[in-house]
């Protein structure tokens, strides 16, 4: 069996020009690889040059050149809660009722004062009541800051008055 098998397989041989064409093919592939490697080296060198350039530019800068002004990023919301008390009544008195217990602000709101309205603040960090900006009466021209639990409506009952002060001619 093996003789016939071997005889048949002996006849399977490479074509005449196989060796030559294979060696040329391998050389071409090697050249192609070399070209590829050369391209990679050039690309790498270019990247290196750019990196060195960027590093050199940054290295020569003094710290003052690279400071940032962050003030532009500060956003102030005038309607937000400020300090440690909530204020939603703010303005200047333009009219005072005859009984002196309600007044009209320059924004058109009428503010009423009742027996429960707090006058001044009594927080641990607050100044003494006599040192706060509070006058004994409401006068036209006084600046008002306060808080109302229901700030909408024609007449608003003040829950607290924190400021009632005439900056030009105050009365203690």
């Amino acid at each position, binding site marked *: 069996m093996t003789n016939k098998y071997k005889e048949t*397989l002996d006849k399977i041989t490479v074509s005449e020009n196989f060796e030559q064409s294979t*060696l040329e093919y391998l050389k071409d592939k090697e050249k192609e690889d070399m070209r590829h490697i050369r391209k990679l080296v050039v690309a790498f060198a270019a990247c290196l040059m750019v990196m060195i350039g960027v590093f050199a530019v940054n290295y020569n800068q003094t710290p003052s050149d690279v400071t940032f002004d962050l003030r532009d990023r500060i956003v102030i919301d005038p309607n937000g809660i400020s300090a440690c008390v909530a204020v939603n009544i703010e303005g200047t008195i333009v009219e005072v009722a005859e009984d002196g217990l309600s007044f009209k602000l320059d924004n058109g709101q009428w503010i009423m004062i009742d027996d429960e309205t707090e006058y001044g603040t009594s927080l641990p960090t607050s100044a003494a009541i006599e040192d706060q900006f509070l006058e004994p009466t409401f006068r036209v021209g006084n600046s008002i800051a306060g808080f109302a639990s229901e700030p909408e409506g024609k007449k608003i009952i003040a829950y607290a008055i924190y400021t009632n002060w005439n900056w030009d001619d105050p009365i203690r």
Partner: protein
Amino acid sequence: MIRTFASKNIDEIVHCYSNTLLKIAYQNTKCYAYSEDILQDVYLKLIKYKGSFESEEHLKAWLIRVTINRCKDHMKSAWFKRRGEMPEEIYLKSPEDQKVMEEIFELEPMDRNIIYLFYYEGYSILEISEILKKNSNTIGSRLRRARQKLKYILEERSLI
């Protein structure tokens, strides 16, 4: 600089091993033209190979293994599957040789490789198990079965 493999340069290797590797590739692919292409790929893989070879035997075993694996890849490739298996190519001129080759092609590809390495190249079962990365018992039983089958086929058709 010319690189050498087990003290042989690539020209010598191509000259020395091409016929052996072609026989293996042809038995696996059943196509002469593909077999030569596969051989070129194997040599390309060799020149890119970073490892070293302890001896010429080691180099030959490596080439055989890579050729068989390359044939397997070829048979598994999407292109080959799409095209479908080609009818066996008539490469051998004598009708008697063609018949023998047809009988060989009736064996499974792995059995063809085992038969070839054992009877033609003279490798032992242990060496074949090393080359094909299979258990030696598996190789032994497959060789026995393939040999019986091939003998039966060849005797039955009065080719030997």
